[in-house]
């Protein structure tokens, strides 16, 4: 079995022992920054690792676990090549001139919502969130996003916010905060499993355009300098996700296997992965990973209009950025 330089053409059936003479001796190391502890948003990554897709492409992936620095910061600083992002979040540093580009849409639509405990009868609409406490993550866009939703529902958009990071959900369940933003397929199911009922408000119901809830972001300069490696990486990752769409249970098992010390509840993983695979990961054409100019423009315009976008000095942008610069399907397709 021989494969070409980047390994991008090797078939799914490769048995692993693919060390063609043309292949570089030592695989290129690519660092990938995570946004959170390993979860089903990351399945494709672990499947691709597990099945050797990266190795086939001559890539050695180094995973940078979640810490208090967002992946965007690390990628921009050149400390990671790729990482997980969110369209609505990553757009902000991109507009401020960060060296970032979105290369893959993992989830085609919103997979988060604003959640409150179902038992909270006093909260019937986002407008009721005025004056309450939000458990946040310290990301730049979140407060403005909450505000926009509340205002759209008729509230003033004045609320308190506590930055809790990974503790936010515990705080929601225990009543320490009133609302936060779970991933439906992750914290949503987890809450259900532990017997907590949540009530969700969906963004699109409150004037928001659609959003690629999870994307893969890369360092623009690095990708331009290493187009082959970038392609190999993105495509291997895409294959991982595609496998997960095809076989959610199998992918969930791999995810667990790769993260044995943190992920223990396979049923939960399967349920989560099944939900993602079936509802969120494919676009209208039934394809995975592709991003469109329309969706970037629509969300971008919303962000620009809401005054969220600022330049590197913190001054609001005066004209809308050219969103086509901020994403590309080239590495996925080329």
């Amino acid at each position, binding site marked *: 079995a021989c494969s070409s330089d980047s390994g991008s053409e090797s078939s799914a059936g490769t048995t692993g022992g693919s060390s063609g003479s043309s292949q570089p001796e030592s695989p290129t190391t690519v660092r990938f920054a995570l946004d959170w502890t390993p979860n089903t948003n990351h399945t494709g990554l672990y499947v691709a690792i597990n099945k050797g897709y990266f190795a086939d492409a001559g890539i050695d992936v180094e995973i940078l676990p979640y810490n208090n620095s967002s992946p965007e910061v690390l990628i921009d600083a050149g400390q990671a090549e790729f990482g997980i992002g969110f369209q609505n979040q990553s757009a902000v540093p991109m507009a401020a001139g960060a060296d970032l580009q979105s290369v893959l849409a993992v989830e085609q639509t919103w997979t988060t919502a604003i959640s409150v405990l179902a038992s909270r009868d006093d909260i019937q609409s986002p407008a009721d969130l005025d004056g309450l406490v939000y458990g946040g993550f310290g990301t730049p866009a979140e407060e403005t996003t909450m505000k926009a939703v509340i205002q759209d529902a008729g509230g003033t958009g004045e609320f308190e916010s506590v930055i*809790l990071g990974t503790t936010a959900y515990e705080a929601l369940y225990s009543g320490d905060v009133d609302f936060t933003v779970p991933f439906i397929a992750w914290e949503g199911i987890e809450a259900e499993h532990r017997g907590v009922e949540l009530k969700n408000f969906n963004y699109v119901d409150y004037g928001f355009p659609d959003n690629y809830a999870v994307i893969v972001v890369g360092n623009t300069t690095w990708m331009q300098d290493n187009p082959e490696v970038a392609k190999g990486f993105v495509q291997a990752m895409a294959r991982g996700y595609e496998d997960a769409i095809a076989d959610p249970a199998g992918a969930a098992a791999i995810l667990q296997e790769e993260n044995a010390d943190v992920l223990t509840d396979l049923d939960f993983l399967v349920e989560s992965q099944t939900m993602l695979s079936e509802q969120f990961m494919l676009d209208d054409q039934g394809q995975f990973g592709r991003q469109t100019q329309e969706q970037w423009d629509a969300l971008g315009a919303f962000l620009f209009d809401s005054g969220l976008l600022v330049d590197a000095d913190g001054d609001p942008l005066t004209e809308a950025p050219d969103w086509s610069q901020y994403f590309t399907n080239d590495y996925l397709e080329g």
Partner: protein
Amino acid sequence: MTDVQQTATGAGARPVDPIAQAVQPRRRRRPRTRNLWANVVPSVVILAIVIAVWEVLVRSLEVRPQVLPPPSRVLEQGWAQRSTILEHAGATLQVTITGFAVSLVVAWIIAVSIDFSPVLRRGVMPLLVASQTIPIIAIAPLMIIWFGFGLLPKMLVVALVTFFPIVVGLVEGFNKTDREVTNLLRSMGGGRVKEFLFVRLPSALPTFFTALRIAITYAVTGAIFAEYVGAQQGLGIYMSVQKNAFRTDLVLAAVLVTAVLSICLYLLTFAIERLVIPWSFKERKARSAK
């Protein structure tokens, strides 16, 4: 001769303040103002050089400000955001002070109990030492799970970080009193309580203030730390948010404010010490003037 004289009053031996001592040359014979001058100028010069080199390097190498902003930008942007930063600093100060107050109360209770009971001492001290090896960074998030994200867990973090040096300082201070002083007091008819009130307590105060000084520098950092883990307001949160917003300049501005805050509190302890134990100041002054 001097040595004999100085140690003669066992109870009054001056504690060593590692910081204060390290900052000032040991035997100064010059008057205050000139001394201050001689002490301040070299640091300012060195600091100025460091800042200038930083500015020039960053500008000439065209390092992106997200990675490392030039000092001028830190000041400029920090100044522009001064009202926000000060607001956060206020919150941090509140956490610092309430937490430090808790720390003081706890430390005094522990230290006095230990002083009165040797068994407790042997039982508790090793545990306190061991407690210092627990990584607060791991405990702080748990605190939030346990106590919510209000003032309480943050106060506890500050207290946890600062109580130990104070306890050690106090216990050590109480123990400065040697056998002979105890004998003297007992011969006068004093019991353990009188010994404590008449000797151990006052003689521990200079050591206490030394410890206080060390602890208070940890206090601000501890508060910021606690905020980093979960808070509504405060320099910790501010820095965390600004870092994720690619505003390294504002992070550094907040770091500067933190340092200034710490240094002010540090200097404040000298003023309080002077107020509470003027004799210690007089004595030290007289000694250094010799």
